[in-house]
């Protein structure tokens, strides 16, 4: 008996699969090297969109996949982030590097304010409430003159490329690296989160709130914590996106489509799994971009039909997302029978 316990205790807490680690390290190096091989601006744009959507989906994954609360209004935090950098830069000349944090802070505050009453609602009611809150942000910004109302904000352009203003006109490569670094940092932190005490407790809240309560876990507080973390991840993507396109308006950055796409990406890739959003974004974003190119304005909604089809196929055959194609021995520990 004792020896079995001793063996169990001597096991490492996490599997370290050298093969997987080297593949990931190789991919990261490749991503840093890619622009050096003279990628044209379309491919740079494609990768920027993949990084951005992967982070946005990861934000949604934290609240929905880790803590089990379906939010349908996550676009609100994206919009807050976008407006935070643009507004403070235009009005007060604050560098986006600082106002990114304003965006995170304001998003976190709204997450608390929304979360305290709403997360007491269970299941579908939280989803419906967030859907309406997401839409109401768009309506408010459409009518708010201080931030340009419906016509939005046209960020003052710098004459030259500028790291301090986070504006690059001659090449997309600097944007590529900025998004790539945010993407890597976010995934690293969320990966740490999933392995932490907090990660364990969030999964407990997701799987069975009552059992979690019996284990000293304050379920409502943990849901709010997840919601705040999720908002803090989302806001910087809005900020960076605003710097990338330099024209923002409520129809674009508070669009309901943002809230839907993060859900689609996560479910496609694998909800509740740290790697799911990357896989989902790497597949859905190219479909969206290519359908935009080949079908143009007239076929604007064709990508949505694709999404619908893919999602149906996934739900029927691989309800845990594409991540479930990854061999089991990489994801799970060998079982003793």
């Amino acid at each position, binding site marked *: 008996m004792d020896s079995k316990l001793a063996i169990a205790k001597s096991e490492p807490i996490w599997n370290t699969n050298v093969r997987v680690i080297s593949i990931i390290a190789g991919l990261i190096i490749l991503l840093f090297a890619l622009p050096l091989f003279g990628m044209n601006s379309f491919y740079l744009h494609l990768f920027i969109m993949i990084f951005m959507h992967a982070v946005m989906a990861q934000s949604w994954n934290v609240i929905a996949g880790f803590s089990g609360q379906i939010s349908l209004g996550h676009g609100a935090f994206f919009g807050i982030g976008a407006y935070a950098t643009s507004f403070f830069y235009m009005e007060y000349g604050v560098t986006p590097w600082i106002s990114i944090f304003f965006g995170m802070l304001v998003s976190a505050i709204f997450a608390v304010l929304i979360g305290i009453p709403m997360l007491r609602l269970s299941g579908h009611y939280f989803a419906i409430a967030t859907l309406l809150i997401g839409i109401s942000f768009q309506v408010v910004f459409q009518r708010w003159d201080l931030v340009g109302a419906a016509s939005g904000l046209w960020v003052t352009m710098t004459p030259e490329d500028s790291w301090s203003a986070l504006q690059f006109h001659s090449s997309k490569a600097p944007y590529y690296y900025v998004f790539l670094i945010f993407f890597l940092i976010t995934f690293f932190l969320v990966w740490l989160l999933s392995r932490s005490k907090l990660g364990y407790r969030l999964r407990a809240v997701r799987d*069975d709130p009552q059992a979690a*309560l019996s*284990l000293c876990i304050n379920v409502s507080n943990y849901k709010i914590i997840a919601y705040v973390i999720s908002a803090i991840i989302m806001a910087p993507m809005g900020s960076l996106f605003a710097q990338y396109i330099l024209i923002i308006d409520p129809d674009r950055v508070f669009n309901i489509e943002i809230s839907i796409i993060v859900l689609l990406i996560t479910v496609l890739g694998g909800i509740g799994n740290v790697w799911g959003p990357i896989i989902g974004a790497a597949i859905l974003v190219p479909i969206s971009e290519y359908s935009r190119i080949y079908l143009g304005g007239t076929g604007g909604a064709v990508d949505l039909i694709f999404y619908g089809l893919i999602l149906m196929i996934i739900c029927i055959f691989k309800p845990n997302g594409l991540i479930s194609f990854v061999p089991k021995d990489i994801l799970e520990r060998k079982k003793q029978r």
Partner: protein
Amino acid sequence: MKILTVENLSKSFGGIQANRDISFDVEEGSILGVIGPNGAGKSTLFDLITGFTKADTGKVKFFDKDIFGMSPDKISNLGVGRTFQKLKPFADQTLLENVMIGAFVKEKDIKRARDRALEIIDFVDLIEKRHHFAKELSTGQRKRLEMARAMAIDPKLLLMDEVTGGVDQKTIPGLVELVKKLKKTGVTIITIEHNINIIMEISDNVLALDQGKRIALGEPKEIQNNKQVIDAYLGTFDAA
């Protein structure tokens, strides 16, 4: 020393009086068995004590602390563990992860929480199943999982709802042995049990409920011969 004192605890759902003026206390280190026909209010009583349901009136004291009206996470944090009649494992997580979630209450460090969880899993004899998902375990094993998970928070008082309910005859003796082994660790146990032979075997005292009311409280022998209990619950039970 009294670990739990319950006074005049009442709860009604709409017109149904689920618990009516229930009073009893539990001596530290003992096992209290709770019996009664279906609908007698046994599980409701557990929910009232552990804070999962708010009682209407009454008093609940854990040692000297008034825990009436406290939220379930605060009550469990004081050292009151519980299992559920309808099992609630974290199904998509492994046995080890299930128990670790409880162990984090006492150990902040992940390695120490893991080791603590492993010791408890070993205690409930499931060490070989530690990396199995909870949904892959049998009902008997899931009962052990719930006990292990509740033990992981290091409770002084453990409320167990139907340890032997829904498992086959072959599995029962092992679970009963486990309850006895648990008692030896010093933890106080309140257990709901339908199997009358088991309750008589393991309990120091037995509380009998019927239609939300306490109808008897005493040592197993007294209860077995109590006329009200026989009428309400044991029926034609022959105390041979």
